[in-house]
């Protein structure tokens, strides 16, 4: 059986097809699952019931919502820059999907084990901001424009701490391949969060800013900018942004779980079981981090753009830089 799978995957086109199909399955599914989780958790936090008519306990409410988007008219504003307007949601969704390629789900269970996996994930995740700026600029709406520009400001402020905080685990592992980092943690004996707790916190803050989640959702900022950069989007294009939001959150948290929480590895699981238990372990870890993001969203208000910039430049970047220095020094000494 295993041999057969290996044979099929060895065929370039068959392997590629299966991988693409899997990613195309994971992205909308994760959006549906985490979307309904967010709705249910927020309802619980807000002393509400939440949806409960559609399906058992309302679990397929989002399916109904998704179908609803198919019926909606696809509106492109008259003044909009139509090609850019149409391209933007695709870019955002593409960037959200791309990160899944390098995440290892078990030993050898990875869509594409890139030598520069960390670099690839960081680069692709910031591609979403290009789509967001494009959406804000092309919508011919001032609120969208402000939202897009805020996203640009956020990108510059948060890409640095995000990258710098990742350097710690990379130094410890001595590789930029995500599979390599997980294997290094297996050898290390404990997940890197134990020795890299501060960069983990910096990473999470920066990731929330990158994902435009509260308390850093200034590019959307419902109470100020209506819906920020996607105010003018309707129907299927709106759905693209929606899918991208949750897929990107899931992807980013998978990335964080792989870097800091030991990825698919958990202590006490025998090597032979790893390919089967690994995905579950990783999913649990990432799910916990997603829960934290949801928790923040429903309990915290929004920061102001200038406060966010000062947080990034005055605190996160110096802390992350200091961590690199300390980690590198200790790595050489020990």
């Amino acid at each position, binding site marked *: 059986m295993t041999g057969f799978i290996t044979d099929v995957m060895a065929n370039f086109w068959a392997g590629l097809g299966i991988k693409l199909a899997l990613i195309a399955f994971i992205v909308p599914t994760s959006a549906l699952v985490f979307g309904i989780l967010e709705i249910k958790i927020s309802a619980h936090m807000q002393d509400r019931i939440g949806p409960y008519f559609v399906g058992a306990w309302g679990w397929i409410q989002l399916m109904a919502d998704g179908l609803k988007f198919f019926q909606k008219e696809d509106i492109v504003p008259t003044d909009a820059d139509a090609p850019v307007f149409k391209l933007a949601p695709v870019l955002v969704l593409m960037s959200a999907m791309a990160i899944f390629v390098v995440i290892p789900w078990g030993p050898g269970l990875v869509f594409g084990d890139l030598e520069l996996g960390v670099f690839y994930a960081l680069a692709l995740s910031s591609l979403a901001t290009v789509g967001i700026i494009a959406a804000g600029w092309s919508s011919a709406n001032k609120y969208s424009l402000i939202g897009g520009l805020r996203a640009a400001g956020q990108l510059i402020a948060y890409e640095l701490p995000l990258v710098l905080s990742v350097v710690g685990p990379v130094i410890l592992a001595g590789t930029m391949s995500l599979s390599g980092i997980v294997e290094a943690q297996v050898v290390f004996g404990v997940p890197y969060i134990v020795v890299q707790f501060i960069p983990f916190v910096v990473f999470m803050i920066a990731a929330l800013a990158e994902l435009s989640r509260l308390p850093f959702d200034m590019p959307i900022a419902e109470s100020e900018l209506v819906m920020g950069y996607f105010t003018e989007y309707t129907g299927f294009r709106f759905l693209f942004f929606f899918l991208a939001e949750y897929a990107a959150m899931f992807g980013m948290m998978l990335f964080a779980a792989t870097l800091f929480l030991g990825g698919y590895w958990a202590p006490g699981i025998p090597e032979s079981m790893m390919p089967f238990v690994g995905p579950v372990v990783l999913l649990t870890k990432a799910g916990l981090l997603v829960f934290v993001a949801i928790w923040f969203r429903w309990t915290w*208000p929004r920061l102001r753009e200038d406060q966010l910039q000062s947080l990034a430049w005055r605190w996160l970047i110096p802390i992350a830089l200091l961590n690199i220095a300390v980690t590198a020094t200790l790595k050489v000494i020990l």
Partner: protein
Amino acid sequence: MTTDQHLLRQLSDASVSVELETEDMTLNIGPQHPSTHGVLRIVAKIDGERAHDIKPTLGYMHRGYEKLAEVRNYPQITTLINRIDWTSGYANEIPFLVAVEKLMDLEVPERAQYIRLILTEMARIASHLMFMGSFPLELGATTPIMYATRDRERVLDLIEGVTGGRFHPNFNRIGGVKPAAGAGSTMRKQSQDLPAGFFEETRRAMDGVRHSCDQIEDLINTNEIIVARTRNVGVMTPELAVAYGMSGPNLRATGVKFDLRKVEDYLPYEGIDFEIPVGTVGDSWDRWNVRLQEIRQSARIIGQAIDKVPSGPLQAKVPKVIKVPKGETYVRAENPKGEMGYYIVSDGGQGPYRVRIRAASFSNLSVLPVVLEGALVPDIIAIMGSLDFVLGDVDK
């Protein structure tokens, strides 16, 4: 965009670039915007995120209550004025009724006066609790409004129990209050004025309200982001507040210790012991805290008023057809949003000759161009939210 429009825009850009300056963007906020509490429209010039030349545009919700009042008789007008500030419908009725009673020289029975006082303070709690939810919502926190509306139900249920209405009770009658819901027309029977167990229920609800305040203090006042977003945002000096005719919690947040409940005698407040919470800086944080403390004080007032409610009739003797003698008067009251007053001119008929409504939110909002000058776009929303105006109260 047509070629002509494009050309025009380029020309205007060119004229600006001669001075080597970038053109400021005109941002139109409202009348349909998530954070304008109805249909306020604000036109601002923004340079990046910094706004200047703020112009509030009012009147999208003008319903002409002053004019409508002229073609109605006095008992009918209470229905209208309920809807001026819809977050505290009950409190709106009081100054109008007191003005009419003053013109008619009616002595309102004490029991009715105390019932009015209790319900007015309940309306204040309801209105301020609404603010406790809507203001964090403007700052991006979506959860407090759920908690606040839930806690507000305690008070609204009680108001509903007495008056039969949650938002627009229409409960006051000239010369007293209406016999409670379902009580028929026999006013003298004690058992028919307030619902059974009302006082015990109210005491319990006030404990609940105090608990809500503790919870709000615990969850929101300790949140660093809330503090960072409100401290020193939208600072108003006492002079500025007085110059623009601000009143209510917005005025008191600047440190001016002025409360009409202590000054005027429209309701029997003099025998009741309560404090006037004041702020020190006059920023959004102070406005938030003053309202929070006012909820506690209102609960305290209601607790004392319950002890003082005498027995007796609910209504003074009034003729079947109410005619108000010729004359004019102005009665003002401390409403949740600030000073609300009615200037009534009577020519001796069944309806007023002219009614002038002094609504608190209108004056409170007039300070916007000053206080928003140079503010950031997120702060515009935060400051507007902290002023706690209601568009029905602004446009009347």
